[in-house]
């Protein structure tokens, strides 16, 4: 099976393809005659959800749209909304992020007082949107919790810092910078936090090689985990 046929079967551009699986057993080059070795399957994250979202999601997103209009955040700031497994995710354009979270924090009908930090994720197959910053917010007032996801291309790995709105994100952004190389522009001191200052590379990226040191045990070489046989 060629790459072209994969492209035909691939879901539309609104889906985030995060993995392409070949074969059924994670084995290649073994002379598999079962036919399963030729399988190609694209794995995508759950796609966008249309209104109504259900539950308090609708009320909250209406409040959010009004608050965005009041604060001059453009309507297209929300790229898409995904409701999956009882959680709502807003994909927000990075240039509108700061105004968006300001509305989340200050609008009485939203009142997300608590930012639970930013977590990174690296999707090398999601072209032009390789790096994701994933923010979680909690509203103690309304008892709600949402996720905000911001993407940036690997070639221009920049997301505006929201430390001016949520100071708690100071260390979280440093951590995500440390592990993924996302440059949070406007952060007061974006330095490494977990790895040593002179560490080369960003270890949690998917293209970061593991096992720089060959491990030999009783004459046999133990490969690093990312080069071992995987079933996934």
């Amino acid at each position, binding site marked *: 099976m060629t790459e072209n046929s994969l492209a035909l079967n691939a879901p539309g551009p609104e889906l985030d393809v*995060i*993995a392409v*699986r070949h074969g059924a057993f994670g084995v290649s080059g073994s002379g598999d005659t079962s036919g399963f070795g030729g399988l190609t399957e694209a*794995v*995508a*994250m*759950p796609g966008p959800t249309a209104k109504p979202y259900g539950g308090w999601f609708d009320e909250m997103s209406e409040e959010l749209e009004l608050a965005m209009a009041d604060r001059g955040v453009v309507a297209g700031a929300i790229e898409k909304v995904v409701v*999956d*497994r*009882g*959680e709502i*995710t807003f994909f927000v354009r990075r240039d509108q992020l700061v105004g968006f979270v300001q509305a989340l924090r200050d609008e009485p009908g939203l009142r997300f*007082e*608590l*930012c*639970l*930090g930013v*977590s*990174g*994720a*690296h999707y090398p197959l999601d072209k032009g949107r390789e790096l994701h910053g*994933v923010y*979680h917010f*909690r509203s*103690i007032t309304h*008892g709600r*919790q949402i*996720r905000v996801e911001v993407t940036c291309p690997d070639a221009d790995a920049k997301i505006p810092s929201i430390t001016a709105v*949520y*100071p*708690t*994100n*100071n*260390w*979280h952004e440093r*951590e995500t910078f440390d592990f993924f190389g996302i440059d949070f522009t406007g952060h007061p001191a974006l330095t*490494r*936090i*977990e*790895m*040593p200052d002179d560490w080369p590379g960003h*270890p*949690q990226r998917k293209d970061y090689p*593991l096992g720089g040191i060959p491990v030999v045990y009783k004459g046999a070489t133990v490969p690093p*985990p*990312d080069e*071992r046989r*995987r*079933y*996934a």
Partner: protein
Amino acid sequence: MSEQVRFVDEDTDPYATSYDTTEGTVYTVSGGDWDSIKAPSEGKQERVVVNMGPQHPSTHGVLRLILELDGETVTEARCGIGYLHTGIEKNMEYRTWTQGVTYVTRMDYLAPFFNETAYCLGVEKLLGVTDQIPERATTIRVMMMELNRISSHLVALATGGMELGALTAMTFGFRERELVLDIFEMITGLRMNSAYVRPGGVANDLPEDGERRIRETLPLLKKRMKDTTDLLVDNQIWMGRTVGVGYLDLAGCMALGVTGPILRSAGLPHDLRKASPYCGYETYEFDIPTQTTCDAYGRFLIRVAEMAESMRIVEQCLDRLKPGPVMIEDRKVGWPAKLSIGSDGQGNSPEYIKEIMSQSMEALIHHFKLVTEGFRVPAGQVYSAIESPRGELGVHIVSAGGTQPYRVHYRDPSFTNLQSVASMSEGSQIADVVAAVASIDPVMGGVDR
């Protein structure tokens, strides 16, 4: 920085150097060589930067504090972390979903059952099997978490006491904690890092006389907990060291994302067990203790009260335990192996070994596939949060449809809460920094992961 100008003879002490900067001469001293420093030139302000840790008995593990002092007063306080970073989140991407439990239990090593449960609740949510978890397994999880909350708070009191000079609190606290760890050892085989909570349930049922032995331990634990806390609650020296120290009000907590006892010491009764219940916490009777003092003493009182509340929940759990399965019925997810305690305190059940090795080929294949390859989890992401002894412990899990996690991120409360060191200690005495850090109760295993 200009080039280094030596004032001290390098032959006598190579570490005690000094160099000129735009702000004046900077001297480096490492102890015992203060005499070698020349007096600061006239009219220049003297500033001392003390590097406290990462190896220091009162920094709660490998925490490094960088303190700028003006006499005894701290003018700036910063934290240096990362000394215990072990790449757990990255490692998990190369192990099966079930093996992940073995990693997460080692993050916040004083609260392993919270790490495990938060992770397993997330995996179960991704799988969509949250409703299928057996009731007995959920009750055991709650019981283990609440016992763990007691043991974690006991360590907080013990180490906090030790750091302020109350050594008896330390010996008592660790002694009482051992009672709880004995229960853990009886149930899971290990005192710490048990990897007991698994996706789908728990690894093993309680031993036959487990319930009875827990019930026997509780009165002793209660009595001793009272002895320990009585040492400190009205202790004038303890109050002198902690009242009004490490002040952080509600606005500060919200801005810095601080949760747990620190937030509740600012008067807000926010606890995820009530605010966003999981594991059936809405059906248990317990209260959320709060204080309005915003200081280290208030946090201490909250921890004392929370231990009593946890004790109430443990007793309710024991009353609820009914016989039944402790692992999900779904054989595509549930761990196949059955365990039994051998003479060495661990081992597989002989009946189960007999079945897979000599009776059922299919059972052996099933066991082999599930144990080596693991189960697949549909693509998607979840955030699962629980109330750990230190605040909101959140797990962001991404699955790419495979047998291994695509990304796991822990929002550890110690990591976030540690950001408040500067707010709590700048402007205070240097000795109060120790009290403030102790009242945050950071666990560096969780901070650095």
